[in-house]
């Protein structure tokens, strides 16, 4: 599950020409036509308004068609789009009065993870998010969002602060993975992530996590354990990058499209596997085509989740979180246990089953209300 060597390339930027991804080629043509007509209209005064309108409609329908059936690999490209909004964008659009806190109290300020007090809706929260950076200089300074141990330690340090004062924690996840380097290993990247997993499982304050772009393996999970975990419609979450997986299992990175499919890393697949609670819809064409709109969806989801979670006693909150984690990824069979279950009193089983399904129905209804 380690990161592929290409990790430091600007995350798919090369795949986007003129802001269009490789599978968006049909749009390039239409966009070009529109621009041509607009230019001619300006220069010659000829009226192309009707044609332009028609082409715009065509653009929209084509966009809709392309995005209604994204392949897993295309989803990966959208999630890595160089113009995709980052945590810092949502910090600006959704959160208010951000008071950044930098210190991990151990080694350094890792700019790949930012943290601090913030307000969202009526809630005071601790904001934690990966930061991939915007311009080249910032991207390099924050290692393209690949955090070192100090980033995970900073996150935990701030979560503990939040716990102390009863502030919920909101984590925005967007990383290719933890940074693979000498310093990272020397300062205990494995220990730092492991510690976060353990402490987030028992942190005595609500935790809401949202995968907004790339959910890269352990580096994502290191700030990704919570009471609720949601994912953006075109984000992905994977144990390994499709390139890395292809290189190992197919022995060639060329097979990344197959790997992306096999890994079941899209929001819809993850929902089927019961890995996530909610898919936050994106505008047609992806978050970068209407950042304000997807920001509104994010705000609505986080605020509703916090309203819900804050109603629970801390005991119930922690118990439910741990039960949720305990159930994750339970895909195994045991013939002896199946036999033992079959032998137990059928009526007991039936009663408990119907009770569970009743609870589940109630719970999922409440989940729906929050969207």
């Amino acid at each position, binding site marked *: *599950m*380690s*990161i*592929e*060597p290409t*990790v*430091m390339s600007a995350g798919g930027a090369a795949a986007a020409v003129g802001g269009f991804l490789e599978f968006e080629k049909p749009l390039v043509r239409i966009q070009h036509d529109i621009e041509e007509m607009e230019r001619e209209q300006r220069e010659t005064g000829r009226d192309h308004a009707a044609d332009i309108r028609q082409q715009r409609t065509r653009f929209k329908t084509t966009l809709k068609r392309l995005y209604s059936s994204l392949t897993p690999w295309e989803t990966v490209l959208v999630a890595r789009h160089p113009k995709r909004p980052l945590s810092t964008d949502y910090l600006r659009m959704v959160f208010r009065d951000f008071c950044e806190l930098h210190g991990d109290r151990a080694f350094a300020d890792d700019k790949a993870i930012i943290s601090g007090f913030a307000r969202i809706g009526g809630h005071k929260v601790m904001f934690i998010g990966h930061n991939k950076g915007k311009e080249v200089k910032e991207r390099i300074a924050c290692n393209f969002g690949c955090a070192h141990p100090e980033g995970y330690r900073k996150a935990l340090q701030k979560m503990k602060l939040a716990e102390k004062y009863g502030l919920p924690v909101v984590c925005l996840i967007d990383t290719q993975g*933890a*940074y*693979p*380097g*000498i310093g*990272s*290993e020397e*300062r*205990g*990247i*494995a*220990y730092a*992530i*492991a*510690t976060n*997993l*353990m*402490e987030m*499982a*028992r942190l005595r304050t609500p935790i809401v996590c949202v995968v907004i772009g790339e959910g890269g*393996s*352990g580096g994502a*999970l*290191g700030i*990704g*354990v919570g009471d609720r975990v949601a994912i953006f419609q075109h984000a992905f*979450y*994977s*144990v*390994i990058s499709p390139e890395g997986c292809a290189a*190992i*299992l*197919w022995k060639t990175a060329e097979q990344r499209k*197959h*790997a992306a499919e*096999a*890994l*079941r*890393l899209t929001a819809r697949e*993850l929902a089927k*596997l019961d*890995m996530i609670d909610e898919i936050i819809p994106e505008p047609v064409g992806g978050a970068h085509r209407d950042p304000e709109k997807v920001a509104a969806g994010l705000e609505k989801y986080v605020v509703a989740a916090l309203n819900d979670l804050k109603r629970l006693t801390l005991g119930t909150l922690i118990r439910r979180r*741990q039960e949720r*984690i*305990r159930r*994750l*990824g*339970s*895909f*195994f*069979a*045991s013939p002896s*246990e199946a036999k033992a279950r079959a032998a137990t009193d059928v009526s007991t089983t039936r009663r408990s089953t119907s009770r569970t399904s009743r609870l589940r129905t109630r719970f999922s209804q409440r989940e729906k209300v929050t969207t």
Partner: protein
Amino acid sequence: MAQDKVDVPAGLWSRCESCGHMLYEKEVAEALFVCPECGHHRRIDARTRIEQLVDPGSLEEFGADLRSTDPLKFKDRMPYKERLKREQGKTGELDAVVVGRAFIRGRAVILGVMNPSFIMASMGAVVGEKVTRAIERATEENLPLVMVTASGGARMQEGMVSLMQMAKTAAALARLDEAGGLYIVVATDPTTAGVAASFASLGDVILAEPKAMIGFAGPRVIANTINAELPEGFQRSEFMQEHGFVDRIVPRGELRQEIARIIDYCGK
């Protein structure tokens, strides 16, 4: 990552993969598969490890028939189902960890042993579930937990199901910790990636066999990222002890007494 198996006539002589000495297999087995010439600790499968570590015949295994259901219906050059069958045939095990109740020098423990012979002991749903059950059993029965780790990381063929096992095992360890349970990790070659970044790093006491590879990212990945050679001994037990992430390096032959000693110090 796997070192190439040395090609020798079955079971008689082998060449040490570290110093190159020709060794009489029977002698190596008596030395717990540690090279008598150079001290190289050879990777051993779970059953061999258990035999070396616990009081004879004391293991009561649980969760022994758990098997993967191939949740992703994964297929690369070979369907995962087929790969599993092949590994099961090769090793005689259903998956990559053995857990149970056992005695070590008369002390009752819950033991988990990972099996590097089974898809490099990668962690999928079965490994995650059995490790979690071992942690829970240790919590319920108030017994020390000893986990012998070895793993290439998460099992890619189970995708996110594998990644979530990291969260699951770590959460179970939070409960063990709160109950005051003792958790001893014995890190063996190789303890890496998703297993290193979850239960293998969370021991109250972390022991390691000499020169075991312990780390998060693969050395080749790191070398490619930083575009430079890696320092000598990078990500080995001695390096990890030097940097504060391993408590004691213990040769294989001393593991039993060291584990027993730590259990006695912690009063369980």
